[in-house]
């Protein structure tokens, strides 16, 4: 299992059977490898409830894609709908969880994931809507940037996606829960010490009760 798969598998463990889940682009799409697809229903904001696995190459339908524009299939019992209806579902709190990437997470659990440093701000897509409406928000990301800079920071230097904090932050090193007082270290990945995590985390965080290594 590579680093991204490790993150995805740890995020998958947070999902509760029966949930309707929206998956962002990147690591989030790997989550489906680690869950029983029949226990969940995947929604994509471009207008499909009941997203199935990618088709074999010879059965790709160019008009059946997810929000990352990758070919998908439809599960039995799927439903297609327009974008306004899709975001009505999302904003209205009918999607149980969204799993999305982030560039930074502040110590309140708020994220920055739409404006890339040094690049023009020309795309937001559905990120802000998902942040405002999904019942649970699970951020999946590498713990630090490629150069080792912490992504869990005291204050985001990049523009926030929402004032609403996320529910969970999952990295290859640790899982953090978020409450009204900020980040709580919930679990360390196997073989990772708390000290290692804290050394690579700029945000202040509290220890969760019964902090374990899972």
């Amino acid at each position, binding site marked *: 299992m590579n680093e991204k798969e490790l993150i995805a598998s740890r995020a998958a463990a947070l999902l509760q059977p029966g949930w309707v889940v929206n998956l962002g682009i990147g690591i989030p799409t790997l989550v489906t490898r680690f869950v029983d697809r029949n226990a969940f229903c995947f929604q994509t904001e471009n207008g499909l409830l009941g997203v199935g696995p990618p088709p074999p190459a010879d059965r790709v339908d160019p008009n059946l894609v997810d929000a990352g524009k990758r070919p998908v299939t439809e599960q039995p019992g799927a439903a*297609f709908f327009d974008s306004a209806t899709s975001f009505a579902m999302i904003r209205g709190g009918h999607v149980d969880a969204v799993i999305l990437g982030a560039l930074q997470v502040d110590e309140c659990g708020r994220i920055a994931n739409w404006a890339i440093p040094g690049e023009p701000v020309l795309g937001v897509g559905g990120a802000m809507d998902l942040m405002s409406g999904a019942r649970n928000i699970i951020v999946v990301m590498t713990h630090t940037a490629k150069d080792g800079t912490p992504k869990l920071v005291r204050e985001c230097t990049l523009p926030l996606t929402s004032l609403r904090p996320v529910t969970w932050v999952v990295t290859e090193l640790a899982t953090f829960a978020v409450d009204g007082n900020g980040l709580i270290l919930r679990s360390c990945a196997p073989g990772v010490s708390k000290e290692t995590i804290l050394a690579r985390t700029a945000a202040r965080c509290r220890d969760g009760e019964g902090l374990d290594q899972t």
Partner: protein
Amino acid sequence: MGHSQLGATIVSATTAIDEAVRDGMTLMVGGFGLVGAPLTLIRALNASDRKDLTIISNNLGEPGKGLGETLRLGKVRRAIGSFFTSNPEVAEARDRGDLDVTLLPQGTLSEAMRAGGAGLGGFYTPTGVGTLLAEGKEVRELNGKRYVFQEPIRSDVALVRAHRADRLGNLVYYKTARNFNPMMATAADVVIAEVDAVVDVGQIDPEAVVTPHLFVDFLVIAEDTL
């Protein structure tokens, strides 16, 4: 309502009402008059001891029929709708002081339900500006035209009537029995759908689903029909 598994739960009307409805709750009830009203669920509600309810519905049935019987039984404390004239007992109950009535234009009522289900904070409608029904409401000029502000409407429970469901809870409707039901199914904490039949997953065209299953908690087979 949280789902512990995928799929809506098929229950009796009595069980659905017992599980979901509590005294003092706000209920949305589908239907344009009796057309598209969940008559089996309403009968179970009437047979229950639940009371002190706020009912959001276009009408309160007809005298002694559907929600008209719920009113007669003294279960309704407040009614929010657009056309109560079809049941003269609504006026009587109000005059006795037993019923509080809120009247909204039909388009405003249905749009407010949609806004409630869509997580919006409210909207501006041109309907009703300068009339009795806009009294006391915020009026605002936007791009040279006047609009009335309307808040979203939500409820604790929605009792809706659909035609067919699959076992997941996807719903399709039948002709003009659709009316308010699809919006109500989006705007309640618990949604109970009364249907003519429950079919296997895959038997409803994904392009024709009107209410996707994530909105629906309980399915009840219709026993009372028009």
